[in-house]
């Protein structure tokens, strides 16, 4: 049988009435999980595993496995669709992968364009979902070979490139952007160092052993920071209402978003394939890329539709990409895929090199169901946009308590301790003062994500090479990334020297 026949048979599995229902239930719950902060895709999937095993009882093991994974995967990519909603409307990212979406999404919402932002996010997610599935069908095996070749040296150079790209997030002043990046890298060192096992900045408090939770910091800086701002500056809390404009995106929005969605889908997919990189990084990278490519980068951070289209496409594509190492190698690239893998093992289906030979019904049924699930999500989400967009019309005096409640609930649900709530408030205050004095928040958050990856991969690479730094330039892929990073930094200077009017640093 060739790929098409396998895919056709997969659709036969996925189109069985009960599997259609499982896919529908999965994406519905996924959307809810994505919208509600606190219940991330990971805990959502984990909590549903026992329920799916009850639902699928009574069918053959192979059918049960296919149905269960169809439902659970639905939750996984459904959550990626839903994750943008609170980011855009309330500046409260529900998942780490939708932190970047808040940058421009919330600005759009404030301008009354929440409807456009939400529908572009849904359309972007849909396109990205389909692109990554097509790539999954045809490129799974060759890509998985490339993905495992990605060693510590390659990761390090890629992350370094990401760090250079931070200039794209810096806002007006590069100096302030760099200060925030370093602050993020420093905060990332808290906890037990994964390479040496040494506890750093923990002061013997077990609560700090695992470092600061990324989501707590992000929600504090963005959501609570904004809350404090609204309260302290009495900006709009006298019942002033933001009007929503049209709900559907304009033709211009669609035209502006087409490129970012396409690039975000591809970039997100390839980053998703790399184990350990993940959707969060994909969303950051695609945002930075769009800003770099944009003709007027100034509008990013002030409500650029591209700033929503790109990261939302990228995080969805990344979740599709992450299925490749999971299915073909049995290597979970993220926490959520690790749980999906656990679920498959429960049904005696071992993801790995033999999955497609031994359990074609499960593997191809899942892939086909993801096509169907993505269509369902688009159909479901477009009407929901109208409903959600109304949230922004809520007067601030009601909205603010809701944001506070959602932030606290969300953080507590993930961390289950009061320490993180204090941390949340602390970062809220810090976020307020930083934003007030024009310090960009995004580089800090990016530093926090990249810090451990840069450090761990640097040291892994050096341990393996006995301290020989040349590993970074002798590996061709690693060298390529380093060259791109260098060009990224050097080209603007050269262009400036040649008299071109390029903004490097407005403060001079």
């Amino acid at each position, binding site marked *: 049988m060739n790929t098409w026949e396998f895919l056709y048979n997969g659709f036969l599995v996925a189109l069985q009435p009960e599997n259609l229902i499982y896919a529908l*239930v999965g994406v519905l719950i996924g959307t*809810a999980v994505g919208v509600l902060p606190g219940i991330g895709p990971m805990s959502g999937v984990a909590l549903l595993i026992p*329920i799916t095993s009850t639902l699928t009882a009574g069918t053959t093991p192979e059918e049960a496995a296919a149905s269960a994974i169809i439902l659970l995967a639905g939750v996984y990519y459904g959550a990626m669709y839903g994750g943008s909603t609170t980011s855009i409307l309330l500046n409260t990212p529900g998942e780490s992968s939708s932190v970047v979406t808040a940058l421009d999404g919330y600005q759009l919402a404030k301008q009354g364009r929440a409807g456009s932002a939400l529908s572009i996010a849904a359309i972007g997610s849909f396109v990205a979902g389909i692109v990554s599935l097509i790539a999954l069908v045809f490129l799974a095996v060759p890509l998985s070979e490339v993905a495992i070749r990605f060693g510590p040296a390659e990761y390090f150079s890629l992350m370094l490139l990401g760090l250079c790209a931070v200039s794209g997030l810096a806002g007006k002043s590069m100096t302030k952007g760099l200060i925030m990046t370093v602050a993020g890298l420093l905060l990332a060192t808290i906890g037990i160092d*994964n390479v040496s096992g040494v*506890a750093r900045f923990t002061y013997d408090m077990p609560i700090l*052993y695992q470092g600061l939770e990324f989501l707590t910091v992000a929600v504090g800086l963005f959501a609570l920071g904004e809350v404090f701002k609204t309260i302290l500056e009495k900006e709009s809390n006298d019942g002033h209402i933001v009007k929503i404009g049209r709900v559907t995106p304009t033709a211009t929005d669609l035209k502006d978003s087409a490129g970012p969605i396409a690039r975000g889908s591809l970039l997100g997919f390839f980053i998703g394939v790399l184990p350990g990189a993940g959707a969060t990084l994909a969303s950051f990278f695609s945002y930075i890329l769009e800003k770099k490519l944009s003709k007027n980068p100034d509008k990013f951070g002030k409500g650029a539709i591209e700033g929503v289209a790109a990261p939302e496409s990228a995080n969805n594509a990344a979740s599709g990409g992450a299925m490749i190492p999971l299915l073909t190698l049995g290597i979970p690239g993220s926490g959520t895929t690790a749980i999906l893998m656990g679920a498959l093992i429960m049904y005696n289906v071992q993801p790995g090199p033999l999955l497609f030979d031994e359990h074609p019904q499960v593997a191809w049924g899942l892939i086909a169901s993801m096509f169907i699930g993505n269509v369902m999500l688009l159909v479901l989400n477009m009407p929901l946009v109208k409903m959600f967009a109304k949230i922004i019309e809520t007067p601030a005096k009601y909205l603010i308590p809701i944001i506070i409640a959602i932030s606290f609930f969300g953080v507590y649900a993930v961390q289950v301790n009061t320490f993180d709530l204090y941390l949340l408030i602390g970062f809220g205050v810090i976020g307020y003062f930083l934003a007030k004095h024009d310090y960009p928040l995004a580089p800090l958050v990016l530093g926090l994500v990249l810090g451990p990856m840069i450090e761990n991969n640097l040291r*892994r690479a050096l341990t393996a090479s*006995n301290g020989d730094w040349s590993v970074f330039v002798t590996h061709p892929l690693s060298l390529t990334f380093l060259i791109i990073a260098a060009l990224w930094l050097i080209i603007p200077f050269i262009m400036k020297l040649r008299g071109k009017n390029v903004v490097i640093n407005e403060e001079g």
Partner: protein
Amino acid sequence: MKKISTALFAGVLALGLAACSQKPNFAGSGSGSGDYPSRAVTMVAPSGAGGGWDQTARSISKVLQESKLVNQSVIVENKPGGGGAVFLAEYATQEAKNDYKLFVNSPPLLINHLKKEGNSPFGYTDVTPLAQLTKDYGVYVVKADSPVKDLPSMLAELKANPTKYTLAGGSAPGSMDHLIAILPAYQSGIDAKKLKYVSYDGGGEAIAALLGGNVDMIATDASAVGEYKKAGKVRVLAVTAPERLGGELQDVPTLKELGINHAEFTIWRGVFGPKEMTPEAKKFWDGKLKALSEHEAWQKELEAKGWQSEYKNSDQFTAFLKEQDQQVLELLKALGMSK
């Protein structure tokens, strides 16, 4: 209209699901005499949802209730933080008498208490071991096309040049994978401090690093490598079990067969109660967990999860932990990482 009703249905369903998984828990501190348990019991997984401890706690709770071994409900609660240390600090100090709160753990309970960095101030002596329920073993794995054919020859090369090979595992130095990785080398008289160990974020990433040729050998759980061996991607050099395992790993020698003594390491999972548990409650769980381990539904659950059954009662388990505690201490000392 139809869409709205579908959305409503989904909402109700989601709520229902959430309600099922998070029942109200009014359990306070332990009550006096009477028929234990007189109310719901909490089973804590000191990690987030989805990990090994969480899955074990959920399986135990499910089988205990479905098989009607326990008439009260058994609620699973996640208490993440510090690799279990956050929960344990609270449990050992504030809930030492709470008969209604049990927890699940594995060798990190011992390791975290003994290691210097990231130390957990409390250990197994601050709680009451009730039963061991499952077992797994460490395995030493190289890539299928690796020049390393067997463990003794690798150890001989490492003896001559301890930095010749890069070892890896899925957790930080001083934690379980690291200890397992250096175990045969240490028992063969190689200076464990000189060996190169690279840590990855979880066993999955470690296997990826091995398959990608970025490390030479990894130490990981026996239950995780069967499929890779079957697919011909890896070679398993040895297992830390007292005797050979079955299934895919039946031709893998034990360390003892290879002439490396005192190198058994069991990755157990077990249930613990508070330190000052009442004799009544302790007796209750000793009996119930034994009954659980013999129950058909539990065997089925284990099979579904790919876990192996091994039951030890409270006394046997405590004695075993004392032994493993010594072994862990010895290994950490060899690494210069003990407290």
